[in-house]
């Protein structure tokens, strides 16, 4: 009943989501990790420390959909489940692998109800689908934010696999957003800005509040489309799904597609001029007023509380 799990990583480092994915996959059986990366050594070493990992298997290869899919495929036969994060990589490779193996995948799993029973959101999280997968093999992606991370302190063996994987697609260039804020998908506190923030400069104010709280910063689709914030900050149905302990929504009215991304938040606070905004209606705590007046005062007040984290 063992599970193969693709490790999530970025810039040569294991991503914090991976410990959450291991916790999810462990509910189905012993977990073997696969790392596919051009420079896999640091990633594999960090992955080996996650509790519950039986072995870390490593393929040194280009990180395209085809090479990752081919690596997973060469190992898939030995496992009852093959899984990945519901991240841009997992979403790219798991359906491709599923078609090759003639398996209907179950993706964006937010709850594991049994060895082959899962819950996944549909319609932007406005409905939940509970299903049974009777196929002999399961192909899954997990939403990392829905699971608590596994502990560390393990020392699983690392095995380098000598696989030659082909890819017709070639990686040309990465365009990164330079930012020192925490990872949005796994942050404990997230500050979100809407289109009323008004400009990229306005978002610097949101970022400053983020720094005060040690929070990650996100944005609505409208704010990203307007060019105020980079695309990888987008929270919602088609952007990132977050599940922080605290989400502070600033100048966000709460379109359905945005609400889809924040339903996992434990507490939602809102700052908005409109007391009737949908997001204000679901907020645990709301302050009605102009964000440009409130946010600088809020930063000063929080500094008084000594909350520099």
């Amino acid at each position, binding site marked *: 009943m063992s599970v193969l799990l693709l490790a999530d990583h*970025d810039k040569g480092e294991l991503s914090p989501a991976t410990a959450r994915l291991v916790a999810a996959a462990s509910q189905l059986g012993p977990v073997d990790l696969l790392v596919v990366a051009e420079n896999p050594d640091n990633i594999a070493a960090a992955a080996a420390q996650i509790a519950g990992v039986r072995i870390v298997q490593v393929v040194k290869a280009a990180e*395209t*959909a085809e090479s990752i*899919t081919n690596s997973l495929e060469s190992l898939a036969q030995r496992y009852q489940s093959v899984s990945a994060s519901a991240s*841009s990589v997992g*979403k*790219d*490779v*798991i*359906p*491709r692998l599923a*078609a090759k193996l*003639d*398996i*209907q*995948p*179950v*993706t964006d799993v937010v709850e594991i109800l049994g060895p082959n029973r899962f819950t996944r*959101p*549909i*319609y*932007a*999280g*406005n*409905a939940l*689908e*509970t*299903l*049974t*997968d009777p*196929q002999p093999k399961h192909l899954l992606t997990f939403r990392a934010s829905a699971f608590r991370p596994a502990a560390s302190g393990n020392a699983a063996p690392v095995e380098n696999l000598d696989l030659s994987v082909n*890819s017709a*697609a*070639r*990686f*040309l*260039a990465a*365009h990164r957003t330079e930012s020192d804020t925490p990872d949005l*998908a796994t942050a404990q506190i997230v500050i979100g800005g809407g289109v009323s923030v008004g400009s990229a400069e306005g978002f610097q104010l949101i970022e400053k509040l983020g720094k005060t709280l040690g929070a990650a910063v996100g944005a609505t*689709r409208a704010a990203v*489309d307007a060019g105020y914030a980079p*695309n*990888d900050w987008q929270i919602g*149905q*088609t952007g990132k799904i977050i599940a922080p302990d*605290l989400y502070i929504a600033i100048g966000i009215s709460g379109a359905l*597609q945005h609400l889809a991304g924040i339903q996992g938040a434990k507490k939602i*606070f809102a700052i908005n001029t409109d007391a009737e905004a949908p997001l*204000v209606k679901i*907020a645990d*705590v*709301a*302050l009605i007023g102009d964000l440009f007046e*409130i946010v600088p005062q*809020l930063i000063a*007040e*929080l500094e008084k*509380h000594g*909350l520099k*984290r």
Partner: protein
Amino acid sequence: MKILVAVKRVVDHNVRIRVRPDGTGVETTGVRMSMNPFCKHAVEAAVQLAEKGQASEVVIVSIGPKQSNDVILTALAMGAHRGILVETDAALETLTIAKLLAKVTEEEQPDLILLGKQAVDDDSNHVGQMLAALTNRPQATFASEILVKGSELEVTREVDYGRETVAVPLPAVVTADLRLNTPRNAALPMVMKARSKPLAVRPATEFGIDLAPRLVVEKISPPAERVAGKTVGSVADLAAAIAAEVNEMEAL
């Protein structure tokens, strides 16, 4: 270059959906339906390539009930050349959809297949990747820019860390993200003209694909509702509420 674009008819993305009380699904009778927004971006991208002289023919395919003709007509009004409806009243799984599209691909031999990255009803984000695997083509998913460079495409993709550019040799599969373009609204003369464009209707059963679902859906349920909280009167109160939350977090 010949382009095949697959489009899906879904509950309009502005409709607030209602889960049926008996748990059998989401209410769709009497609900406004339209083309999945991501599919519109795929159609727009194909039509723009045709307008630039980089594509010779844009063929639209949709799989679904008879009413899916509507979304094919929308795409034809946007400038696509002809349509194919693979007709079925059954709710098909994504793998089945991909297998049917692979059959259509075999017949049509397009150089480029464009799809939306996901449908806003089941939010699967599967079909483009599956079709790429079944037709043994490279894929570039979540595209925000597509450039034709000889017999290759240079595609910029929206990924978790930002954006990345990949080169994919044709024939290939590309799925569209929201910032790829701004889909046009077809003017009335184009809508009228669309009705005279060829639209073939083919029963899904004639492709020799097993249409039976693999997964057993037990129930569809509404998510837990959030209850309204309180409004505070001052920034100091808000700061105190945030401080209380953060202190609780650190106690964990």
